[in-house]
């Protein structure tokens, strides 16, 4: 009996997987980015699958961070920023004039390289995104803060000092707080820009576990310099080189049988 049940669920998940593969969460068509005269992203097209972890790898200055920041329009404020091409999230062009950047960012959360909690209490940090949306009901705030902290696997560690300054937490805790802060807003996409580059291996492992768990509900895109991190946690990997997308495929393929010589050289550490 049990065996049959197991078989069924397996079939089910397999169906789900194949269903997912046909879907697209973010669709990028010929995206180009300039900073003044410098072309940082040179015409990239790719589709990002929902409920998966996609890793962006590539040497420093290859445009992967710039590319990532297109998805929540974080480049908008940078002087000399200019962009061409289309980026659609769930079918909507996010660079359309009618799109409110603030609304977009509630849908597309972001976690940064260095843990950057606000110099406020833990509670205030998580509640911030909700408060700026005008949510002021204490009960709602309390429950959403707790939910987010639990999702970020931080609740047990901080539940007794929610009033304590977030700056008193350790680096790894701060980064999980930043993830909780992002989750509280309930986005569907989470962008992570080298989220563990400033953390020790144990904190890194915790965040990687977290990412693995979050995949179920969110679409995660992570920029990382750590090749093993990309291979450990991602389903898809994209390799960027000087503003171009060199190779984009399933992580298991890219790390065992890369198609392009350049990708192979990079992942095996033959050029950096």
């Amino acid at each position, binding site marked *: 009996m049990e065996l049959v049940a197991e078989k069924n669920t397996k079939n089910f998940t397999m169906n789900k997987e194949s269903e997912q593969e046909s879907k697209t969460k973010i669709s990028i068509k010929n995206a180009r980015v300039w900073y003044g005269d410098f072309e940082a992203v040179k015409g990239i097209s790719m589709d990002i699958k929902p409920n998966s972890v996609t890793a962006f790898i590539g040497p420093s200055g290859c445009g992967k961070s710039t590319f990532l920041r297109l998805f929540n329009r974080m480049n908008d*404020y940078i002087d000399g920023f200019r962009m061409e091409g289309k980026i659609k999230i769930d079918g909507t062009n996010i660079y359309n004039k009618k799109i409110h950047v603030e609304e977009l960012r509630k849908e597309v959360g972001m976690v940064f390289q260095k843990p950057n909690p*606000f*110099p406020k209490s833990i509670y205030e940090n998580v509640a*911030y995104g909700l408060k*700026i*949306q005008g949510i002021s009901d204490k009960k709602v705030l309390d429950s959403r803060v707790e939910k987010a902290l639990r999702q970020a696997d931080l609740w047990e560690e901080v539940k007794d000092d929610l009033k304590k300054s977030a700056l008193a937490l350790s680096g790894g805790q701060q980064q999980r707080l930043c993830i909780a802060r992002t989750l509280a*807003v309930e986005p569907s996409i989470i962008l992570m820009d080298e989220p563990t580059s400033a953390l020790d291996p144990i904190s890194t492992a915790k965040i990687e576990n977290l990412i693995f768990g979050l995949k179920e509900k969110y679409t995660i895109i992570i920029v990382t310099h750590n090749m093993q991190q990309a291979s450990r946690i991602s389903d898809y990997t994209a390799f960027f080189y000087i503003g171009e997308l060199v190779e984009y495929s399933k992580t298991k393929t890219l790390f065992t049988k890369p198609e392009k010589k350049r990708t192979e050289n990079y992942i095996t550490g033959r050029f950096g």
Partner: protein
Amino acid sequence: MNKIQVNRWKDQLFKIWGIGCTLVGLILLVLFIGDILIDGIMRIDWGFVMNLPSRKAEKSGIYTALMGSLWILALTTIIAFPIGVAAAIYLEEYAKKGRFSALLEINISNLAGVPSIIYGLLGLEVFVRILNLGASVLAGSLTLSLLILPIIIVATRESIKAVPSTIRDASYALGASKWQTIWNQILPASSGGILTGVILSLSRAVGETAPLIVVGALAYVPFAPSNPMEEFSVLPIQIFNWISRPQHGFIENAAAAIIILLLVTFMMNAVAVYYRNKWQKKWN
């Protein structure tokens, strides 16, 4: 070996020179304060603070001048603080970086260096005559506000700049608008620096004499101002007035008034230092 010794020797020499320079300033200050204290400390009592000015030195007090100074201080704060901070926020957060903003920036820095008497002349023409405010507390405050605005703007911009950009990014990334980010994150984070700048600029305003004389502050006012449109005097003018009298009693009065003025500015500086430390701690 030899080279290292020469370097050490230079190092020592510079250290001694530095100590000397520091001491020059300190000793002069101590001498000055000591001299003032000897002259005036005995004169200070409750009556000196509460009495109105009089022709007789023993009966004279600084009540009207002190009240005038406090009025000026309060009004200047009310006028200059919001305008200065708002201007700084605009320049730092909203203005597009370009030639125009660069021009504005240079001008503001230059304004901070314009002699205060020029501000007095400007105040006289614009506030006293054109706006017809007369030699009132309001006209004086407006003039002093102009004087300290550049300082407030520069100080505020510096402390806004000092807020890590990661905080800004975090706030924007959570869907906050520009205003929400400024109000909820940037201003609280830079408040210590802003307050320090404002307080230091105000303590400069308290000591200003020249522009107020030009605007028409009087040496002798029989009553403390009760509203912004009345005539007024301030402590520095009172001191200036007393010092110019021949009687020895007034010299004593001047010394005592200087002690009070110094106390006010020292206290303001102390508050500024306190906030600065508190602010620095937050970030480290």
